[in-house]
Every structure is written in C-alpha cells, then in structure tokens.
C-alpha cells in the first residue's frame, strides 16, 4: 500500500515527536537514504558524532533507530517516513546496506520463531498457590466493597458526593490492593462522574454496574462459562495469553476500521477495531502502553490484513488477539455497509443483555449525515434518528468530508454518545480520531 502524509502523521506518539519529525523531514539533514519496495533506511545527523541509523520495515510498519529516544516511533523514524510519504518517487532506490539487511533478517527470524509454539517450564504448584492467594484477596476485597456499597445506599449519593473525589480514589486504591484492578477502574471512573452535569444519573448507573459485578461474582458458579469469564475479566483477572491462543481461531481478512486512544493516568489504552470481511465479526485489539512505552503501530486504520484471531472467552466476545497474521496489508478504500441508528442501538441493547459491562460498542452506520446543532455534533441516519456525538468530538473535518451528504461512519457508542473514529465516502477513507 502507499502511505500518505496524513497516515504517517497519525503514527506519531505525541505532538512533540510529530513536530520534531516534521522539522527533520528534509533531505538535506540526511547524509544517506534509500528504499526498496519493502523497507526504508537513512542516516540522520544528530547532535552526536555518528549519525543515527534509521530503519523502517514498510510491512508492519516497524521502526528501529539508533538514537537514545524512548519515544516510538522516534522523530528520526517519523522524519524518514514522512519524506517517503511526501514524495516516494524522489526517494532514492537501492540495495539495503548491511545494518539494514541484518535488522530485516532478524525481524523475519523472530516472526518465524513467534509462530512456533513455546515450550515453557512452569512451576505448576507455585502458580496455583499464587492464584489461590489472589482469589482470597479479591474475595475479601469484594466483601469490603459490598459493605461500602450498602453504606452508600444508606447515607445517600448526595452525602457521598460531598466527600469529593477522594472518597472514590481511596475506594479504588483499596481495590487495587485487593488485586481487583477492573473493579478499581470502575470505581475510579465515578470520581469523574461526580463532576458531570447529570451526575446523579451517572453515579447511580456506575454504582449499579459495580453492584452487578459484585453480585455476579458472589454467584459465579451458577453462571454459564462464557459469562463467568466476563465477570472475572471485569473484576480484573487477565486471561493468560496462552489460554486465549487456545481458543478456536477465526481466520479472515480483517478490516482495520478505526482506532482510539485514551489516557488513563500514566497508562495509554489503544483500542483498534477490526471486522472480518467474510465472517462480519467485530473484534477489538487492545494495547496498553505505560509511561514512555511505545504504542502498537502495526494496525493502521483504513487497511486490511489477513490472519487468525483468537477471541478472549466471554458471552459476547469482542476482545481478540492475533494468533497468526500476514505482515502485508492492503488499502481499505471504503468501510463496509453499516446500519441505521435504530438498528445500531438495538444491537447495543442485545450486546448488553449478554455482557452488561460493555463500555465501548463498535457501531458502523450507513448513510450517516453529520450536523452541528449549536456546537453539539450529531449524526443522523436514514431512519430519521440520530445519535449525539461525544462532547469532545471536533466535527468539522467530518462535516467537510461528508459535504452534508451520507457517509459510512464507524465509531464507539457508550450508550450515551458516539465517538466517531473513521468515515468513508466516494471511495476514500478518513480517520477522525
């Protein structure tokens, strides 16, 4: 596939790197550059004596730079890629030098190795002991949380609200100690709900959802296995990678529909939504990056790649992980056919009945017309129903792209507002987030 400047810019880990990358993206700053159909490389003069060596594997894409930056991709990688995107035809063609060739071969080898099953030696007994200890801690933590929820009901939300953010922060911290990070996150989000306009509604919703998780955990033996997995995931147990990979794989051509990034304290959570071209199945690839850790840049919205996905077990499986995937991706010129607003919210309701804690639901809207109603964005569909867009959504790009006419729109629906992530019309795909 060919890369546009906009697509490359979207890979920047932050605005600083994007800007610095821009400044470095001029051939004069690069004593040597070269490319093949599959890779780019170049040397960029930095402040040190030796130039930084930058390598980019276009299939992926993957980056490697000899600079000490902990940003990923770094500004040098961004700059090299930008020059290629801006004027690929002016980029010198050539044979990769040894330092590039070595890296490319290393990557190929590692990919091969990763495809082979790992034979791990595990101390089963110690592992079981750890698991049992955690089980006890979580159970105790949930028992305390249950008392606290009853206390909230007794004293009333009004009284709790007047205690400020600190109340929820303390409760969340106690749950982290009890090794129930999922519950901790739900509680932590209530701290934000306290400031919202419709706070009492949001607070009650949140408390109700937490209570539901607590009750489900108490009765977990009575639930079907899929739902058991959901409850444990909601409380904060991670399904081990090996266990996910044991699930029956779904082989398909996966369309990368959209990507969103959320900052939670020092953690960045990247959600990439995929859809199987043949199966029509939606899948969510989650990626977490703590602190300076790089985000995954290998799934680019507006592309397709074939591979095998394994879904995390659950009653309404969305989260998935690649068991195997092709490195080569192709352009996705248009989003697949979507639904009306009514159909989409109907599907959301059906999903809730299987998985009540669903937070972001993928929504693909057909013939969606964006509009701005006194600064509030909305998206209308052919059934004359509309979905409100999230307050943080800046809709001008979408509005211009739509020309006031219907587009196919992909976004995340949280039951209240839509966060548009991408759109397509006239054979063109655009990212909105």
């Amino acid at each position: 596939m060919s890369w546009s400047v906009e697509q490359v810019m979207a890979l920047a880990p932050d605005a600083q790197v994007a800007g610095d990358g821009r400044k470095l993206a001029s051939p004069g700053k690069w004593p040597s550059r070269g490319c093949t159909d599959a890779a780019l490389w170049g040397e960029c003069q930095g402040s040190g004596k030796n130039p930084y060596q930058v390598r980019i594997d276009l299939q992926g894409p993957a980056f490697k730079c000899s600079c000490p930056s902990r940003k990923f991709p770094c500004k040098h990688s961004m700059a090299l890629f930008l020059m290629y995107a801006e004027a690929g035809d002016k980029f010198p063609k050539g044979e990769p030098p040894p330092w590039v060739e070595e890296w490319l071969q290393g990557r190929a080898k590692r990919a091969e190795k990763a495809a082979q099953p790992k034979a791990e030696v595990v101390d089963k007994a110690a592992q079981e002991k750890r698991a049992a200890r955690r089980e006890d801690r979580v159970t105790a933590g949930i028992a305390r949380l249950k008392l606290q929820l009853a206390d909230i009901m007794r004293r009333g939300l009004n009284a709790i609200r007047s205690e400020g953010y600190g109340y929820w922060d303390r409760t969340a911290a106690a749950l982290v100690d009890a090794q129930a990070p999922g519950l901790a996150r739900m509680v932590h989000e209530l701290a934000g709900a306290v400031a919202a306009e419709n706070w009492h509604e949001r607070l009650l919703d949140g408390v109700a959802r937490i209570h539901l998780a607590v009750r489900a955990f108490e009765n977990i033996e009575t639930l079907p296995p899929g739902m058991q997995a959901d409850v444990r995931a909601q409380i904060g147990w991670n399904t081990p990678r090996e266990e996910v990979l044991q699930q029956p794989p779904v082989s398909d051509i996966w369309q990368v529909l959209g990507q969103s990034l959320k900052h939670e304290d020092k953690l960045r959570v990247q959600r990439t939504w995929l859809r199987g071209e043949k199966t029509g199945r939606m899948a969510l690839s989650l990626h977490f990056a703590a602190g300076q850790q790089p985000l995954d840049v290998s799934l680019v919205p507006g592309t397709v790649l074939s591979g095998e996905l394994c879904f995390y077990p659950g009653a309404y499986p969305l989260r998935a992980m690649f068991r195997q995937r092709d490195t080569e991706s192709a352009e996705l010129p248009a989003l697949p056919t979507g639904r009306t607003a009514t159909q989409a919210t109907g599907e959301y309701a059906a999903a809730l009945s299987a998985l009540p804690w669903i937070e972001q639901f993928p929504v693909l809207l057909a013939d969606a017309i964006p509009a701005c109603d006194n600064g509030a964005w909305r998206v209308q569909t052919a059934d004359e129903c509309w979905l409100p867009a999230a307050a943080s959504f800046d809709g001008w790009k979408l509005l211009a792209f739509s020309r006031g006419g219907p587009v196919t729109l992909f976004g995340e629906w949280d039951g209240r507002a839509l966060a548009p992530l991408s759109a397509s019309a006239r054979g063109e795909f655009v990212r909105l987030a």
Partner: protein
Amino acid sequence: MSVHMREQVAKAALLGLERGRPELPAASGALAAAVAGISSSEVEARWLDAAALACMHAHAGRLPPTGKPLAAPCPAETRPLCGRGARNYLSTMLSGRFEVALPGWIVDLDAAGLRVPEVQVPGLLSLACKNRKAAAAARRCCGEVGRWIALQHPEWRALEAAEGDDAWTDGNINDRAEWLKARRARDPAAGLRALQDVWAGEGSREKATLLNSLKVGLSIADEEFLEAALDDKRKEVRQPAAKLLGMLAESRLVQRMRERLKPLLQVDKRGKLAVTLPTALDKAAERDGIESSSRIKGLGDKASWLMQMVACIPPAEWCAAGAAPAAILKSADKTEWAYALRLGWSIAAGIHGDARWVTALLEKPASFSGFDVVGKMLQCLPQPERESALVKLGEFEHINLYTWSEQVPAAWSESFTLTAAKLLHAELTKWDRVRWSINRLPRMGACMNAAALEKVARLLDPTGFNVPEAAAAAHELLELLRFRSEAHDAIKEKP
C-alpha cells in the same frame, strides 16, 4: 413505566435509605418480573439489586432521538480536485512545517483552477482567517464545500459574510471597514452612499477608520463628501479626509494648494527654481490639513508647510515648462530647501503614482528620512524596476535586506533572488548583526525564485559558515526553497 421506577430508585439513592426505608417501587412489564425475583434479604442490597436492574433496563431501552437533517447538503463542485502529491505537500504546510510557503502555493493552486480535498478544507479555512492576503485564493481552492461549511462555523463565517450585509450592520469596526472596502471595489458610489447613510451616527474614531476604506475606488465623485468632512469638529476625522482629497489631482483642495504654492515655488523650462518659504499659515490652509508645527527632524515649521503643500500636487505638474524631474531635482539640491522639496516630491510621487519622478528621486536616495515614504514610492514601480531600485537602496544600506519581502511580496526574479542571496551571505557571515532579524528569513525564502534553488544553494552553502546558527539558518532557507519548488511542481501533476 420502568423509567419511572429508575427515577424512584434514583431519588431514594440520592437521599439515602436511612431517612426512611420505603418499600421497593413497583415496576411493570419484563422489569417487574425481574424485580420480583430479587432475593436479597438486606434492604440496601434489595435496593442495589433494583438499581442494577432498572439502570440496565433503561440503558438498553434508550432509543435514539428522531429529527430531520439540519442543513441542506453542499452544492456540487465545479473545480477538479488537486492530485495526491499536492495534497501531501498541503498536509505538510497545514501541520505547520513551511507554513510560510502556503500563501504563495495556494495562489498557484488557485491559478491552476484546482481545489483541495474536503478533509483539508477546515485547516485551510482556519488559515485563511489568519492570513487575509491569501484568503480569496484559499476560499476558491476550498470549493463549494468551503463556502458551505464556512457559513456554519462561528469564525470562518466572517470569510463569507464580508459579502453579506451582516458585517456592515452588526460587525465590529474592522469587519465594517473590510465590508466597505469590498463594496467600494465593486461599486464605489454604492459604498459612498452606505457610508453617508450612517455617517451622522458614527463616533469620530469610527469615522476615521471608515474614511480610510474610501481609498478603494477613490474618485472625484467623493469630493463633496470629503470636503464636508474637512469641517468636522475632530482633527482625527479632518486629517484622513484631507489626505484623501490630496490624492485627487482634480480636487478643490489640490487646486487650493496650487494657488498657495504659486507665489512660493516656480520652475522654469530648464528646471531652475525660485523658492520662497511661506510666512504664515491661515485658517483655510489648516482646514486643508496642513500641520502648523513640524514633526520632522531637521525641518523647521515653515519649511514643513512648504513640504506639505508640495506633497499634495502631482509632481508631473512641475515639469509643465518642459524640465525633466532630474533637472528640477538637480537645481533643488542647490537650494537651502532641498530636503523639504525632495521629501514633498517623494510623498507626492508615491501618492500620485508617478514612476518617472520616483525613479529620478531614487537616483539619490541618501536624503530619505522615513521608510514609509520610500515604501509607497516603490509601490509605484513595476516589479522589475522595483527590484532594481531595492538593490540600489540596499547598496546605500537605507533599506534593510529583510524588508525586501515586504516591498516585493511574491515571485522574485532570478537576478533579484541571487542578489538577495549574495547580500544574505554577507549578513550571515557577520553573524552578530543578523541575529535579531533571523526570524524574517523564512519570509524571504517564501518570495525567492524557487527555480533558482541550485544557484542559491551555491551562494549560501551551509558548510561555508563558521557559526552553527548561521549555517542552520542557511540550511533552513534552502530547505524551504526546495520544498517550494517540489510543492509547486506537484500542482501540475495529474490527480
């Protein structure tokens, strides 16, 4: 009625159950069946169960609101879309890199009759709001969708509203001045009528600002109105009115100046001068805008009166007896009032756009005091002459190299570009002197002839500078030229 149940639960939860322990509210339908199944024994748990059921029920059952589309879709485009390469270069500029090249580039794209992709329209409109010079070209390159979306945006609307009457009746003073200029450009008489309609109700500051807009489309038809403004109570209104009348060679004000000058200044056919300073300033002369006390260094009050009178008369009139400007200037230089006369003629040549006089005056630029005057004079010259005049002035160091881009704001010739590059090389070598104005370099880079890149690169080879900052500045300038040259070529590429 289930929403009703949720509200009941919310109410109880808000106040707390310790204020009385009501029984669970009644539900209906499927929710009622679920609520009936609540088995918890403690009252708080029962209420929490009910809350979980009611909230989830309401959440799942929420229907999207209905409504008609808010705006009519945008009309079809008439311009073809620019190519993929052009789009990439535009993204680069819109992201802030080489932004200085954007106004020139968008004018080229406009000349090629192309438009930008829809998704780049918001970025380009934001820029058009900041950069008035390129605004018209940017708007055309945004196509119909640009117009359509601008009318819906709180700030971009101003780009379109300049044509509607809202800006005139409701806009701030700057919007109104812009509106009036636009109206004057299309129909000067209609513009004047619009100003006359509101004139009596305006404050003196507004009057002064709006008068300046009459410069556009100024003609003798405006004379009556401007003459009346000379009798305004406030000097800030009288002054711009007198200035405008001074631009009209056939106005009564200029005629009065001629009468005043008749006994003071005569020129014979060989250019010989007879100069007498005025001795007194009467009320009529002050009404015509002549300042009684000199504001120019090195010029006495009386000499400044002479200068101000000379500044109103089209300088060509002094050649009536047959003398050329050069001859007149030569004999003027021999008199005691050379400075006053040269300054007066310079202003007059700028006002009346007399290229012949400008050229003659610039032959000896040593005596200029104000840069405004030279700037206006230069604007009378066609670009090639303006460039060579600047080169000459540059040699006298009366005009700073970095102001060249203000004087010749676009599309420099190759030779002018190379002269600038040579001078720049000298400036960058004397690094200490250049530091303060280094941020003006990109402006120059935006005007230079990008086709001369190779030659400029030889003149400004970054490796030839000892100071790293100077080398970096030269490097950045060359990068800008390279970018401009490539971005320009990309316009011609097929989509």
